[in-house]
């Protein structure tokens, strides 16, 4: 039996409603995380009044889940004006922050305004590791203090633990810290290319043998046998299925008013400073192009045994050169989970063999461009 959330999603798809939206209120940040994909300079952020107008349009369009993120949201002096506006419009609001600037006053205000949850990025339980990633001395201490202020007000806090080479050994410490703080803990091994397409930061991510170890760790993934099981046979449901919620029930709005299908899908579809949100959502050629894609429209992935279970991100595929193409980072994950190469990897293998390089390792293949 479908859950209420699943029913809501199905209804939103049928009605063409953007049920969830992430609005980044700023790209400015007090931290300089080594893996961050953003340009932190201010290139002309929307004012609080402009953002509130956008929020009214989103409420009229039917948006229910609103994530306010950045950059660091509290770099904006008027952040609470935007939050107050969002809550007056009865959005279910989630905030993503590093919590560095959250003290009693900010935590009280978030509680008063009825924020649903606050997600805080913590990279390590050891200050020397966390602070080296954020490049902000004292950041772990301040972020943990911020979490304590939020928790003491009864706010739901989620500790988000991005895993990369620098902090791979520390996930258990972060998980224990989250437990001690009374917060939930989530882990993600995905490093995203820069918004401008620069892929150099991907080298910070874990891959190959390390990724395999992560996926075989019950503390991290739950039921290992289930998580790493070989893919089930692909069926019509997979071929006719939607790749993800981007452009169907979700979209992303930048601090400058640019609307994208998702946070990590930088395909410009319009700007709310020039057009009404619903005009972009319903009529943008790009939004409708993304919306039209089904599993069977993916030339490589539709032939892949992983199609039904792959985490393929169309945004990452877009950043790789083709939103209908494979996302090699997800091929790498499917391979690390199951040991079975993806159709994309097999195609690259054949290409390399034709070029006289038959010995290239599977784990290296994912980083070679398919020509």
């Amino acid at each position: 039996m479908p859950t209420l959330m699943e029913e809501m999603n199905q209804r939103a798809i049928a009605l063409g409603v953007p049920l969830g939206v992430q609005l980044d209120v700023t790209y400015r940040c007090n931290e300089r995380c080594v893996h961050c994909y953003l340009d932190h300079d201010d290139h002309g952020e929307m004012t609080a009044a402009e953002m509130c107008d956008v929020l009214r349009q989103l409420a009229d369009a039917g948006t229910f889940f609103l994530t306010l993120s950045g950059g660091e949201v509290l770099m904006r002096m008027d952040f609470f004006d935007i939050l107050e506006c969002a809550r007056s419009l009865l959005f279910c609001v989630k905030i993503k922050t590093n919590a560095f600037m959250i003290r009693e006053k900010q935590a009280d205000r978030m509680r008063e305004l009825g924020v649903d949850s606050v997600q805080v990025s913590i990279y390590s339980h050891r200050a020397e590791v966390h602070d080296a990633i954020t490049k902000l001395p004292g950041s772990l201490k301040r972020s943990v203090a911020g979490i304590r202020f939020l928790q003491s007000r009864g706010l739901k806090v989620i500790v988000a633990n991005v895993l990369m080479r620098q902090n791979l050994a520390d996930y258990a410490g972060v998980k224990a810290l989250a437990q001690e703080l009374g917060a939930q803990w989530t882990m993600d091994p995905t490093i995203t290319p820069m918004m401008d397409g620069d892929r150099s930061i991907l080298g910070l991510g874990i891959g190959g043998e390390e990724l395999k170890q992560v996926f075989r760790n019950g503390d991290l993934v739950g039921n290992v046998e289930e998580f790493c099981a070989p893919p089930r046979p692909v069926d019509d449901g997979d071929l006719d299925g939607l790749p993800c919620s981007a452009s169907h029930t979700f979209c992303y709005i930048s601090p400058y008013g640019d609307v994208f299908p998702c946070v990590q899908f930088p395909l410009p579809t319009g700007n709310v400073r020039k057009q009404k949100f619903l005009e972009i959502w319903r009529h943008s050629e790009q939004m409708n192009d993304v919306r039209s894609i089904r599993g069977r429209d993916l030339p490589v992935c539709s032939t892949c045994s992983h199609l039904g279970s792959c985490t393929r991100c169309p945004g990452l595929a877009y950043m790789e050169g083709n939103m209908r193409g494979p996302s090699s980072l997800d091929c790498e994950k499917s391979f690390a989970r199951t040991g079975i190469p993806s159709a994309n990897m097999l195609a690259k293998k054949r290409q390399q063999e034709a070029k006289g390089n038959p010995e290239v390792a599977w784990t290296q293949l994912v980083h070679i461009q398919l020509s």
Partner: protein
Amino acid sequence: MSPLYIARSNEIAARQLGDEMIVMSNRDSTLFSLDSVGLVIWQAADGRTPLEDIVKEKVCAEFEITPEEALKDAESFVRELAGHGIMRVSDKPLE
């Protein structure tokens, strides 16, 4: 029996999705989907109109149900919502 007054709480997130209303309680993040009857009551919950009047004037006018049966269901409905902090219920008018 004294009249029952109902008002929507501010401690919620809510949005109409088609002919249903999605409501989430800030207290415990419980999610509710109100059907078309629930939606009529929800929209009429102004804190000043007695529930009995809402049932007679709105619910029975739109749906085929007797006032007695509708009032019984409506009371149970608003008390359940009140239990999750998403509706305020009182025997006096509410602000």
